[in-house]
């Protein structure tokens, strides 16, 4: 079942001119700095790496079903208590790298896909699809078909990005919220 139509074309416009994403041969790249500016404007971000114990990793795995270990070395914090976290999940063939901005109240400020290198399923990088995560908290199910809309032909990527956002929110609750 690998040959379903790719659906709509590359979502360059949806990413916004300010981000100036580069997409060539099925690749979408947004730098960390670009995503930070898009989410937080001129607000200063300070690196805030964390090291998770094995028990904490297990909590995140149970909360999100993402089995790959969470890398805590790509986390930034703003003076107002907001967070910017870069993470990656398994895509159909490659990893999908994404960033989650979290407001001081623990809700999702914005999600941005930084790197997507599959041959179809670009809708996961469109703000039209990613906007459904805005305002979600760790209490949200974030399940495909329940409170997250599926993308035909890109179910795996859509599910894994949703699981990834869930994991970042779980990491916020577990280790970032109290800092």
């Amino acid at each position, binding site marked *: 079942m690998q*040959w379903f*139509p790719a659906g709509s074309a590359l979502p360059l416009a949806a990413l916004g001119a300010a981000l100036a994403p580069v997409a060539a*041969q099925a690749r979408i790249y947004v730098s960390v700095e670009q995503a930070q500016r898009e989410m937080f404007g001129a607000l200063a971000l300070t690196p805030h790496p964390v090291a998770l114990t094995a028990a904490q990793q297990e909590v995140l795995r149970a909360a999100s079903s993402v089995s790959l270990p969470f890398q805590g070395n790509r986390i930034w914090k703003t003076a107002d208590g907001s967070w910017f976290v870069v993470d990656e999940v*398994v895509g159909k063939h490659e990893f999908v790298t994404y960033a989650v901005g979290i407001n001081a109240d623990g809700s999702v400020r914005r999600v941005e896909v930084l790197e997507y290198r599959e041959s179809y399923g670009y809708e996961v990088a469109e703000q039209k699809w990613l906007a459904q995560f805005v305002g979600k908290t760790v209490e949200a199910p974030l399940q495909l078909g329940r409170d997250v809309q*599926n993308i035909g032909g890109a179910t*795996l990527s859509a*599910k894994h990005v949703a699981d990834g956002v869930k994991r970042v929110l779980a990491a916020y609750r577990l280790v970032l919220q109290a800092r």
Partner: protein
Amino acid sequence: MTHRQAVGRYDWNQYRTEIEYGLSDDFQIGAYLNAFSIRAQDNYLSDEVCATTPCTAGFGVPGTASSGGAYRRSGIDGASLEAIWRISNPVTSPVGVGLYVEPTWGKLEDSLEFRLLLQSNFLDDRLVLAANALVEMEREKYDPANGIIRNSMADLLYGASYRFAPRWSAGFEGRLHTDHDGYRFEQHTQTANFIGPNVHYSAERWWLTAAWRHQVGGSCYGGGTADCSLGHVWDSHGRDQIMLKVGYLLN
């Protein structure tokens, strides 16, 4: 590619070109153009088939060629159609279930194949366990002297594949194969077991899968041992099956 039988040489190769299209998220259709080549020489040991041993026989080889030394034939065989209905998606369900049907019209044989497709994914969908339960009715017609041969087969295909690096997966697959006389499994005639490794590579717009299944053993039943010797089943089978699939995304 089916390769090697009891002795001598046997190469039974199928070359299939397919175009697939998804009509919806859960239903796809396909069409194949099938070609073939056969090369056999002194590959059978069974004295039920051969007046003298070894002789030339096997699927695609007419009875008149048994004592004639080398037999070669190649060309366009025919066409197939395919339809797959996905009932559940293994990414979002514990078990993905699909139904598959494939009719074939060919010079060598006509067939009608049905499959129940099962798949479960684990470890962020990097580990895939899959099984296909297959039944097929076959109308063999490659040997005009012997007329039409009506067969049916039931197979269990199973395998596991692990994505060990971006774009790369590898694993193993097996085939528990049974052949029967008649379209309705009237008489069980053969069973054979195959197992071997597979490897898969996916680029952005194309992919390649290679697999090798080795026949670890087989038996004949129903009073006929014509296609068995040395603990293996021959007919359309060999000691080794090698499969190479290349796909390209058109849209």
